[in-house]
């Protein structure tokens, strides 16, 4: 007879070194139940936004999550622009997309690299992280920081590209693309060590994704091809053609492959943005007046749909800022993904939702 246990996992060192506590019910080696306890690193960021002005909030919100650090201030700025009726110049739209896609590529590569680390394939982990450095160098050179790229201001962007930086960016893309397309993706697609640990593991169906309101690559790995950039284009995404990546199987492997393919498609989008980059101003002016009002905006962050709701009262300190992050729903889906799985696969399955504690708890 197999015995039933409750095993505590976490709050430290499950997949990512971020705290989340799991109570896993097991029967022998098989997972039968899962409970999650969050709240270890709540920083009260939403509260703090009401204590700071909109300029300071652009930086504060950038610190909600370092991997999605462009999406948070960008979406926040979009709500204020909606409230004040600010027209963001076309060049700024393109520069925002460029910042977005650079961040997306680096974020996705980070997640798939961690996958390799979890299955003990550390040389692959190193290889992907090394390739990702090409994108990190782009961020450091163009924006001045490896993670918090500070691209946005209210009404536009605060960085510009000239001939030199464009040449640099394109050159970096030329270096990264072949590594991603001809080395990394084929390894994840065919390597036996990767396939045997990730195929058929952590399954979630498309219907469950809809039920749980899943977003981003997690849902697209189950064939739910919902991408805000396409269903509700913001910036100038409506002017650019690209395909939403999705795979039907809904396992750990599919979610990783979706991320890898998206990274590749981001490179193509980046090239297209640079090619079409219109001339003109990069922002609508330095000091916008934000009247009282409320607005909602959404973007496709690397982890999925990011929604911001903001109320203002006519001062430059917002009355309320609320964000709904994609990770929030994705955590809940772990209950489906883990059921019937093996204890040894827990970190792998957790990593497959690209978990982000810093934005969940913010």
């Amino acid at each position: 007879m197999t015995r039933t246990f409750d095993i505590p996992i976490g709050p430290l060192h499950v997949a990512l070194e971020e705290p989340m506590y799991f109570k896993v019910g097991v029967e022998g080696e098989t997972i039968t139940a899962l409970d999650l306890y969050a709240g270890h690193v709540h920083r009260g960021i939403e509260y703090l936004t009401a204590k700071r002005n909109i300029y300071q909030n652009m930086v504060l919100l950038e610190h909600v999550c370092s991997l999605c650090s462009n999406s948070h201030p960008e979406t926040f700025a979009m709500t204020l622009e909606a409230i004040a009726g600010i027209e963001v110049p076309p060049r700024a739209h393109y520069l925002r997309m460029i910042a977005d896609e650079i961040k997306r590529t680096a974020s996705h590569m980070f997640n798939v690299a961690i996958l390799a680390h979890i299955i003990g394939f550390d040389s692959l982990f190193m290889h992907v992280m090394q390739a990702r450095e090409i994108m990190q160098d782009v961020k450091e050179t163009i924006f001045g920081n490896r993670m918090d790229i500070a691209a946005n201001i209210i009404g536009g962007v605060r960085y510009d590209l000239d001939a030199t930086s464009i040449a640099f960016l394109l050159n970096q893309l030329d270096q990264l693309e072949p590594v991603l397309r001809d080395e990394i993706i084929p390894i994840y697609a065919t390597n036996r060590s990767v396939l045997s640990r990730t195929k058929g593991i952590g399954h979630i169906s498309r219907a469950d994704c809809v039920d749980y309101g899943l977003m981003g690559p997690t849902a697209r790995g189950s064939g739910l091809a919902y991408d805000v950039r396409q269903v509700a284009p913001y910036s100038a995404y409506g002017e650019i053609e690209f395909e939403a990546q999705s795979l039907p199987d809904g396992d750990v492997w599919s979610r990783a492959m979706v991320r890898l393919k998206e990274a590749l498609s981001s490179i193509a989008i980046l090239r297209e943005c640079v090619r079409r980059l219109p001339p003109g101003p990069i922002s609508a002016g330095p000091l916008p007046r934000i009247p009282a009002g409320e607005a909602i905006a959404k973007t496709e962050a690397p982890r999925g749909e990011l929604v911001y709701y903001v109320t203002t009262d006519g001062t430059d300190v917002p009355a309320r800022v609320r964000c709904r992050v994609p990770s929030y729903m994705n955590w809940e889906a772990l209950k489906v993904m883990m059921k019937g799985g093996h204890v040894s696969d827990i970190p792998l399955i957790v990593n497959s939702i690209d978990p982000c504690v810093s934005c969940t708890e913010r």
Partner: protein
Amino acid sequence: MNFLQVLIDNLRKGPATEPFPFGDASTPAAYRGRVAIDQDACVGCRMCEHVCAGGAIRFAEDNEALHLVIWHNTCVSCGLCAVYCPTKAITLTNNWHVSHRQEDKYKQVDHVTIPYSACTSCGVVFLKAQDPLMQLAYKTVGANETRLRDLCPDCRRVESSRGARP
């Protein structure tokens, strides 16, 4: 793709990491590092204090001057001060060598003094528009503007409306 081949290629390429601290680590010119302030260009408008995300910039006043104080250890290198500074007096250098000894931690401070002037008419002490601000505000700074800026706001109002008919 054979992973062995990747390993061999990487071996052939040699180390991918920077040799720091035994060699130089490359630093891009645009890197956001330690903040620097140009005392002569600062006009004391306090915009940098208003936007400073980390609360690193603080102003203080005494009878003679306005003081800008920046605590580098509180700065998050966001660069907002540099973006919004009207005279570009405040900039971010690409110096990231900010580590220091524990006993020096309260010394990571820069201090800029913007002296007050006495009004040439009534003698009241006030913050006069500094040269960089005048250059921003006027195409050419003539004798009239120069004379008016030596007056405190009250005397300036009286002076500039002198001779105007009600």
